[in-house]
C-alpha cells in the first residue's frame, strides 16, 4: 500500500455520460507515420484503407495526419479532460491499429491505474455513519462538566442493612398474613 511507483486509485465512474446523451470523450487523434520507412507500412495501409471509414462513422473526432521522416509510427489521442495518450504502432498489424483506434475512441481520458476497490457507492449507509454524539443524551450539549447527574452510579447489590430491614419487615408481614388465614 505504501508503494507509490504504480499509480492507484479507487473506482470512480462518470455516471452522467451515456445515461442521457453520450458525448465522445476523444477530442482529436493524430496518426504519426513515416512516408518511406518500413515500420510504418501497416500504418500507411491503415490510412489508405480504413481511416476514412473511421472518420465517416465518428464525425465528432478530429483526425490529424502527421508524417514524420525516419520516425516510428504512433497514435496520439487527446481527450476532453485535457489528457494526452501516446501509443506506439511500430510492428502492429493493420487489424491491431484498427482495434487500438477504436479503443482510444471509447475511452474517457482518465489515467489507467490500479483499482484498489472494484466497488463504489455514494450512499454507503442507510442508517447514517456513526459519530460520537449519536445515541447520547442531548442534555450533554448544555451540561457543565463535571456533572453529578452523568457521574453518579446508583447500582448497588443488597447491602447487609437492606437484608436486616427486609427480614424484620417480612416477619411482621408473615404474622399479618397468618392472622388473615386463621380468620378465614
Amino acid at each position, binding site marked *: 500500500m505504501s508503494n507509490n511507483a504504480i499509480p492507484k486509485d479507487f473506482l470512480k465512474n462518470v455516471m452522467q455520460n451515456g445515461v442521457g446523451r453520450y458525448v465522445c470523450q476523444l477530442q482529436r487523434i493524430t496518426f504519426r507515420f513515416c512516408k518511406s520507412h518500413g515500420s510504418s507500412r501497416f500504418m500507411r495501409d491503415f490510412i489508405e484503407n480504413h481511416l476514412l471509414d473511421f472518420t465517416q462513422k465518428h464525425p465528432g473526432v478530429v483526425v490529424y495526419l502527421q508524417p514524420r521522416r525516419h520516425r516510428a509510427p504512433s497514435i496520439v489521442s487527446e481527450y476532453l479532460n485535457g489528457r494526452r495518450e501516446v501509443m506506439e504502432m511500430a510492428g502492429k498489424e493493420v487489424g491491431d491499429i484498427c482495434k487500438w483506434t477504436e479503443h482510444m475512441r471509447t475511452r474517457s481520458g482518465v489515467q489507467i491505474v490500479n483499482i484498489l476497490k472494484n466497488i463504489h457507492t455514494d450512499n454507503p449507509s442507510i442508517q447514517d*455513519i*456513526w*459519530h*460520537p454524539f449519536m445515541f*447520547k443524551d442531548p442534555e*450533554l450539549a448544555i*451540561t457543565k*462538566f*463535571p*456533572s453529578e447527574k*452523568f*457521574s*453518579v*452510579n*446508583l*447500582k*448497588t447489590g443488597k*447491602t447487609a442493612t437492606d437484608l*436486616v*430491614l427486609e427480614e*424484620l419487615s417480612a416477619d411482621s408481614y408473615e404474622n399479618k398474613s397468618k392472622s388473615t388465614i386463621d380468620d378465614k
Partner: protein
Amino acid sequence: HNRVIQWSTLARSWWIYDANNQCAFRSAYRLMIYLQGKHKPVYGNGADIGDHVVVINTQHIALRSNFWRTFKHHHHTRYAGGYSRTSAWRVHEMDPTRILERAVHNRLAGIEFRRELMARLHLFPEAEVPENILSNVTGQIQQVQAIPKKLQDYTQEEIDKFPRLFELPADYDTESYKRENRLEPDKHTSMKYRLK
C-alpha cells in the same frame, strides 16, 4: 460533505471521570476502554482512535480490604542495590495520582500504543482542572461503584428509627478489640523506612 463526516466519525473526544471513593483497579479497567477507543463502533486494532480522559479527585481514591498497607509498588533503578518496594499508602502520600496512573499503565500491558494512551490520561488530585483542559471535555464517564453511606451521612432521626437487633450487656467493653501492643501507624517499621 464526506470529509466532514470523516472528521466527525474519527474525532477524538475528551471525557471526565470522578474518582471519588472509587476502586482504583476497577476504575482503571473502565478508563482503559475509553483510552483505547473500544467504546466506539469504529474501533480498529491498529488504528489509534482513543479519547482523552481527565480524572479528578484521585486523592480520594479507594482500595479494597488491606491493600493500602499490603499492595506494593516495586521499583528498580537498574543500578546495583536499586530495588525498592513501597506500600500503597506511602506512594499515595508522596504522589496522589501515582496509584491510579500505575493501575492504568499495568492494565494497558501488551498494547502497542500504551505510551500514547498514557499521554492522553490526565490525572488531578482534587477537582481543580486547568481551564484549557476542562473546556475540551464533552462527556462524563459513569462511576464504577456506588458510594456507600457513611455513619456521618445518616441523620439522627434515621439512626433512632433503625430497629434495634440486640442489646449489649452493661459490662461490655467496646474498646477490647484493640490489642495491647497495637502501635501508631509507621512505628512498626524500622527507622530506615519511616517517613521523615
